[in-house]
């Protein structure tokens, strides 16, 4: 992964679309005494691929089920364009869901599974046949039309589930961790297909996952959910490059969190010193491992340089893990302070070395309520 | 192999252990026990308890619903479960002849000579010079009726066929109902005993006659208690029954009437016998002796309303009781009763009876 480009995704059309297709407003949901969603507001633009990312228990599946209509919300509103969605029953919502465990009807053939929604709307027979065939072709399952679901592999069932939802041409498609049951290779393949499929049909996808890499690979925007509250909603590059909070920084990708004292535009964490903006006082900075590089020691730049646009520090190499193009290195800076760095392959390193990073790469983040 | 998977073996072991324990428990007998298979009313505590106390034994009784049930049980291999049985005159001969009962040592039954000579001298339980049973009680199968429904006693069995009694009568689930129909059809003339040996043609007529009766039948009864209940719950107003039922209903304050209609009726002489398989023959003999003693016979009569085989029982009775039991005029009374006899073609009778019950 290369160095994150700040602000690169800020102009993403999805994020700034004028009329959202789906509008979630101050949604609160409890199960018994346990709050699950504690006030969620989120707009989703038409044609957007939005991922709701969170750990298990963060409330992401509940949010999806509220949109689908499988749960009733305690307070708040959900709108689809001009329509109040949360007041109509699930079977009248123009929303379809791809379930985590596929939920393929075991007593119906693949064809009948896909035709299910069309039959519910009394679609003409000829149209059903045409659209189902088309949908199955789209997910490359045309030859399995008459097969019994029990005979399909997990990946094939996943495709049927997709076709079954998409054939209805929903305004919003909800996907509840649809890839989590697949093995790693199939999963990567499906990610690619899913993304191109979404571009092809132009339907709004709301995708739930706990896998941050998946979220980054697929989404136009990522909504990071944490214990029932939205931590940050932003395009993947922005959320990676400029995490709002320490939690977001840690959850998306690896990072080093540096606690620093800021005075007069200078941040200092132990012996590491760099130029910064913002208020004075104690602050936390996120520094991605790949932003750290080996300093050119032969250049002989003195340790306490006055040019603080590049920060320098010394540390002993404690551990080096081979990672192909980049190795992961653990640097012991003393006082049990360890910084992780990703260094382009330059052989086995050892002993005490000097490292550097650009001051701009240390991103000031909020600590969050219980970080 | 986990402990979980080992469980089935342990369960089987447990089952085995349980079987062993249960059967072992069954073998351990301490006080001697007499087991009876008798008609209802013949093991009433009012007289059985005294015997249990004086002989330090335990008496347990099963009731039979029909003579055929008794025979089927003895034939079917349950004979060894019972010590004393009370077959009626219809099957007593067959049971004695089939070797299901043990010959009695009359010298151990001092009360025997005091039993009614007429009953004693009947050939019913005498086979090859041996005596296999003691007459115990006798009585008719009278017509019972609800006196609130009948202003005056019905005088004929034919009243049961009255269309006004639709669903209002009960019939005994026993061949006696067939004998009764034969009487109504006049097959008891001139020889009353002919009803126990009907021809195929006559049996077919009996079958038709009883199928005609079915709309009037609310329920077939097979135990005296059941018949008593049917009257008490006002399900029926008339039925062929036992004097025992009359006794029970009178005791309960139910307005029950009992009569022998003009066609006369069937009746029975019950005998007490000891099974061949009994392991307590001496105790059983003492029980028989106790049961035919005049004092016991009086108590049996009090419970059942049946006539005692030991006419000396009358000495303990009031005049009224003697009159109710017709003991003041026994010979005349007995002519009204066609005592059950061995039915040579019992299987044929049974087959027809089953067809009648199964018919729509």
């Amino acid at each position, binding site marked *: 992964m290369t160095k994150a480009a700040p602000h690169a995704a800020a102009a993403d059309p999805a994020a700034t679309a004028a009329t959202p297709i789906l509008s979630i407003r101050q949604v609160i949901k409890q199960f018994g005494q346990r709050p699950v969603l504690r006030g969620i507001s989120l707009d989703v633009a038409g044609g957007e691929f939005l991922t709701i990312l969170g750990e298990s228990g963060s409330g992401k599946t509940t949010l999806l089920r509220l949109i*689908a*209509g*499988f749960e009733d919300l305690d307070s708040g509103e959900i709108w689809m364009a001009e329509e109040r969605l949360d007041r109509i*029953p*699930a*079977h*009248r919502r123009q*929303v*379809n*869901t791809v*379930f985590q*465990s596929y*939920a393929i*009807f*075991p*007593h119906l053939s693949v064809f009948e599974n896909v035709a*299910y*929604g069309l039959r*519910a*709307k009394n679609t003409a027979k000829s149209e059903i046949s045409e659209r189902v065939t088309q949908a199955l072709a789209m997910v490359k399952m045309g030859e399995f039309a008459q097969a*019994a679901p*029990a005979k399909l592999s997990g990946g094939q069932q996943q495709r049927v589930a997709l076709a079954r*939802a998409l054939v*209805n041409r929903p305004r919003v498609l909800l996907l509840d961790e649809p890839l989590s049951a697949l093995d790693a290779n199939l999963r990567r393949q499906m990610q690619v297909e899913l993304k191109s499929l979404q571009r092809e049909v132009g339907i709004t996808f709301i995708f739930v996952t706990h896998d941050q890499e998946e979220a980054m690979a697929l989404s136009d925007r990522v909504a990071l959910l944490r214990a029932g509250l939205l931590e940050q909603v932003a395009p993947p590059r922005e959320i990676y490059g400029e995490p709002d909070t320490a939690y977001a920084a840690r959850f998306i990708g690896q990072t080093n969190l540096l606690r620093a004292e800021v005075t007069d535009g200078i941040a200092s964490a132990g012996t590491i010193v760099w130029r910064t903006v913002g208020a004075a006082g104690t602050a936390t900075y996120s520094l991605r491992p790949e932003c750290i590089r080996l300093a050119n020691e032969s250049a002989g730049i003195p340790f306490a340089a006055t040019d603080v646009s590049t920060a320098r520090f010394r540390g002993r190499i404690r551990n080096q893990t081979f990672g192909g193009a980049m190795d992961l290195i653990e640097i012991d800076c003393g006082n049990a302070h360890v910084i992780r760095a990703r260094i382009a392959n330059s052989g086995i390193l050892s002993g005490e070395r000097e490292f550097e990073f650009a001051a701009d790469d240390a991103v000031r983040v909020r600590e969050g309520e219980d970080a | *192999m986990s402990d979980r*998977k*080992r469980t*089935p073996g342990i369960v*089987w072991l447990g*089952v085995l252990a349980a079987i062993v324990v249960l059967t072992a428990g069954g073998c351990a007998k301490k006080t001697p026990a007499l087991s009876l298979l008798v008609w209802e009313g013949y093991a009433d505590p009012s007289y059985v308890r005294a015997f249990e106390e004086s002989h330090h034994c335990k008496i347990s009784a099963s009731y039979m619903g*029909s003579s*055929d*049930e008794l*025979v*089927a*049980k003895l*034939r*079917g291999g349950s004979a060894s479960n019972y010590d004393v049985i009370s077959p009626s005159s219809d099957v007593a001969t067959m049971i004695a002849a*089939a070797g299901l009962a043990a010959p009695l040592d009359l010298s151990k039954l001092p009360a025997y000579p005091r039993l009614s000579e007429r009953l004693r001298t009947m050939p019913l339980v005498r086979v090859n010079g041996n005596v296999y049973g003691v007459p115990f009680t006798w009585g008719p199968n009278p017509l019972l009726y609800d006196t609130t429904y009948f202003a005056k006693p019905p005088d004929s069995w034919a009243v049961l066929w009255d269309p006004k009694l639709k*669903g209002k009568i009960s*019939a005994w689930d026993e061949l006696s109902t067939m004998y009764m129909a034969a009487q109504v059809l006049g097959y008891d003339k001139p020889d009353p005993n002919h009803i126990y040996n009907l021809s195929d043609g006559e049996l077919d007529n009996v079958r038709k006659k009883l199928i005609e009766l*079915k709309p009037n039948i*609310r*329920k*077939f009864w097979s135990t005296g208690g059941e018949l008593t209940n049917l009257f008490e*719950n*006002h*399900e029926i107003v008339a039925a062929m029954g036992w004097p025992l039922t009359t006794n029970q209903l009178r005791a309960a304050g139910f307005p029950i009437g009992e009569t022998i209609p003009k066609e006369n009726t069937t009746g029975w002489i019950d005998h007490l016998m000891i099974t061949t398989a009994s392991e307590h023959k001496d105790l059983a003999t003492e029980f028989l002796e106790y049961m035919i003693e005049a004092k016991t016979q009086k108590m049996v009569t009090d419970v059942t309303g049946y006539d005692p085989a030991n006419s000396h029982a009358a000495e303990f009775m009031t005049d009224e009781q003697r009159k109710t039991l017709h003991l003041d005029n026994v010979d005349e009374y007995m002519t009204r009763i066609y005592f059950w006899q061995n039915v*040579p*073609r*019992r*299987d044929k009778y*049974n*087959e027809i009876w*089953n*067809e009648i*019950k*199964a*018919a*729509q």
Partner: protein
Amino acid sequence: MYSRAYKAGVTIPPLLWVSVFLLVPYAILFCYSFWSVSPAQVIVHNWNLQNYLQLARNPIYLQVLFRSMRIAASVTVFALLLGYPLAYYLSFHAAKRKDLLYQLVIIPLWASYLVRGYAWKTILGSDGVLNGFLQYLHITHKPVEFFLYSPFAVIITLTHIYTPFTLLPIYASLEHIPRNLVEASHDLGSSPWSTFRRVILPLSLPGALAGATFAFVLTLGDFLAPLLVGGPSGVMISNVVVSLFGAAYNWPLGAAISFCMMLLVVTLLFVTERLEKRLAVS
């Protein structure tokens, strides 16, 4: 995997059990059906087909068999009509009351059959609860007699006794339906009723079939209900068997009927099991 001793330990006892308590008695029964009763009321081992011929010739036996099957079919229908909705409610809507209601359904199974039979007698009798109630409300003026000692009473009693047997497999099959299938159906635009018709009902059919088989087979073999609450013409096939064994001492004919009944029931079980499997797969 498992030791030989272990394998023997788990397989031999059930095999022994089945042989001693099932196969051997059936074989003996089968033999009896080819013997006959002599005029002297002794069962003689002269092998012949007389008993089976008698069953074929005398229409009374077929007549009773058909009556038994009619009653069994009625009980099956009523047990399904009562059992299915209750099982459905239990499985899908009972929520917190589920365990309690489930126990309430099960508890009657612990009560003696006879107690339940007698209970119906006191409810349906001429002086019974139902007639008393109807007369109190002046709906009827004298006892309705067909309530008790009638096919009606037999069907009501057996429906009451065998509905739990019908309900349990239905409940089990409903419980096995993944709830996300129901959600998927709603999600795809099916109303609750249409979801029931298109998803829940087809998926619970194997359970319903198993339940129906229970009710039918158990009723077909019943003899106590006709005895307790049946009418004078309500004799069922098992009553004939009981009377042949118990009173008539015609074990051979009773054995022949029993064997025919067994054949009928085994065929029925075979057919329904095949059907259940087909329903379960498709």
